[in-house]
């Protein structure tokens, strides 16, 4: 019987330790929650555009089209490549906190309009890093700019399996006061009012 009591006491000691650990984790969680609640809704929305959880290529298209339209730039072609399995970028991606989308597009624009387009793209909260630009001067003042760029998205929700891991979670709200974050302009959102349905989807519009 004494042996049984010893085992029960050890088990009870473990429960008490876990109990006090949970109390401490509860305090950590409450502090995190209070920090989380201090973030404004607009900052959270902008953060979600900087680091969307999915590829959100639709959001990129909406941004490109809106920025182009506002500057009389014609978006003539756009292509996305989402490849997490091959290549250097995949290796980089596995070590980084986000995935990369290879984006290429062609725009037709005048020189000044293209500069304005590029400038607006650089300030867009759906961050797009232009890596390559090429164009040739033709007979008119409209040039075809071929652009390659990188866009980013999050690596998905990492579930906290072990509650103790919340001890390492930090919410650095100073990021929202960073001038580079403040300077970003909120990206246009895709329309939520979508009218669906066509009798014959193959009839040209």
């Amino acid at each position: 019987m004494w042996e049984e009591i010893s085992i029960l006491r050890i088990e009870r000691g473990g429960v008490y330790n876990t109990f006090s650990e949970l109390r401490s984790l509860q305090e950590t969680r409450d502090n995190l929650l209070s920090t989380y609640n201090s973030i404004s809704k607009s900052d959270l929305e902008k953060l979600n555009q900087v680091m969307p959880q999915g590829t959100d290529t639709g959001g990129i298209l909406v941004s490109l089209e809106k920025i182009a339209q506002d500057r009389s730039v014609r978006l003539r072609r756009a292509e996305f490549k989402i490849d997490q399995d091959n290549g250097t970028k995949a290796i980089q991606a596995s070590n980084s906190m986000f995935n990369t989308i290879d984006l290429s597009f062609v725009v037709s624009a005048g020189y000044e309009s293209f500069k304005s387009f590029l400038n607006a793209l650089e300030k867009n909260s759906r961050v797009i890093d232009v890596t390559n630009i090429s164009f040739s001067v033709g007979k008119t003042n409209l040039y075809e700019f071929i652009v390659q760029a990188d866009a980013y998205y999050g690596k998905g929700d990492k579930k906290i399996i072990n509650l103790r891991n919340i001890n390492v979670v930090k919410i650095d709200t100073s990021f929202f006061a960073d001038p580079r974050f403040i300077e970003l302009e909120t990206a246009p959102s895709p329309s939520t009012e979508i009218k669906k349905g066509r009798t014959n989807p193959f009839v040209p519009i």
Partner: protein
Amino acid sequence: MFFRLSFIFFIATAFLSGGLLFYRNYVFNSLEEGKSTLSKLEAEFDSALISEITRVSNSISAGKNILDKHLKQSDIFFLLEENTLPQVFYNSFVFEHAQKSLVLLGEALSYSAIASQSMTFESLEQIQSAVFSNLTLRDTGRVAFTLTLNFK
């Protein structure tokens, strides 16, 4: 005498066993009570909320990383505008960030204009090298060139 001693021993053993049983039950009950409190406490940790907090934390870290390396290629056009001589123009532009290079095809009014242009670019702190090649005198009297700018 022997009977008395045996009786005392028996009573002592009975008391001890009873005490142990009582203590065992006490430990067992407090263990069960502890487990129950622990379960309630664990249930208070809303996993959806913790996931959201973790997501925001990860997004901030990733966002910082992205803004640290955010590229602003529009500066290249400002650099060209500010530093191209009036005797020089370009008709083709190929920029590759990975190579940190910009290849421009263009024409200049003279070879000396190209020499001045070369010196202008090489004097800039952002430029590692400015290399003119394929210099060809056109029928128009202009000199065609390929200019490769390598950035630091």
